[in-house]
């Protein structure tokens, strides 16, 4: 299959590069990458900034509240290896 031959180079990037890429988008989208694969699950935690600036100032504020009040995952904090 052709998809097997082409590498997943994005996941192979060093930590510093992926966290840089994730820091360049609103945090909501960075956190969504957690669903991509097991490798990506906690990568978003290494972003160097938090950006809740959606196009609507009110939804941005809601987003921040939801982020701060989110439920902690089971054993999430220990599993930060990528």
């Amino acid at each position, binding site marked *: 299959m052709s998809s097997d031959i082409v590498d997943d180079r994005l996941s192979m990037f060093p930590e510093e*590069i992926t966290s840089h*890429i994730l820091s360049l988008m609103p945090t909501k989208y960075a956190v969504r990458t957690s669903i991509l694969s097991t490798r990506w699950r906690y990568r978003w935690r290494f972003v160097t900034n938090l950006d809740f600036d959606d196009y609507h100032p009110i939804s941005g504020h809601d987003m921040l509240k939801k982020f701060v009040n*989110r439920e902690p995952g089971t054993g999430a904090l220990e599993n930060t290896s990528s």
Partner: protein
Amino acid sequence: MLKNLNSKHIQRFSYKYLPQFPISPNSPKLGFSRSQIANYRSNFPTTIMSSSKTIVLRSSDGETFEVDEAVAVESQTIKHMIEDGCADTSIPLPNVTSKILSKVIEYCKKHVETPNADEKVAEEDLKSFDADFVKVDQSTLFDLILAANYLNIKSLLDLTCQTVADMIKGKTPEEIRKTFNIKNDFTPEEEEEVRRENAWAFE
């Protein structure tokens, strides 16, 4: 001749003391004697006579590129190598192929040549250049990211990473996986757990 140039010489004849025109032995403000100047002139003609220095960069596949120093030092990595006196004959860049290095040089040249966003036209021109610069296939884009990271060229790293960031945001996870060939290795239970964990982001 260049082998004799050590850091002491570089400090002494650093560019803030060098005029842009050939110096006259009679010029008193440099503080050198006539014989000193004649002596140094014959030994180091390129550092005294020319107003710009070129650096030779060698790619991983052995190709060499001669660039103005002002362009080369857009890379902090190269800048430090020059300052540490490692730039004797040429600077080897074993992590960068000639294809990518020539693109990086093109980027640095454009950014050095364009005055710093003083004029609206220059700023627009540079933005347009940058936009076209990253219209490359994914493999080349990734190579550019790695090169910009290795060579420590902040603006190029920001540009290329922003391009990838723009490719990620706004896409569904399945679209992202398809674009970047990422294999989903979650079990259905794990995937559900991740969605619950970060529910606020998936709304």
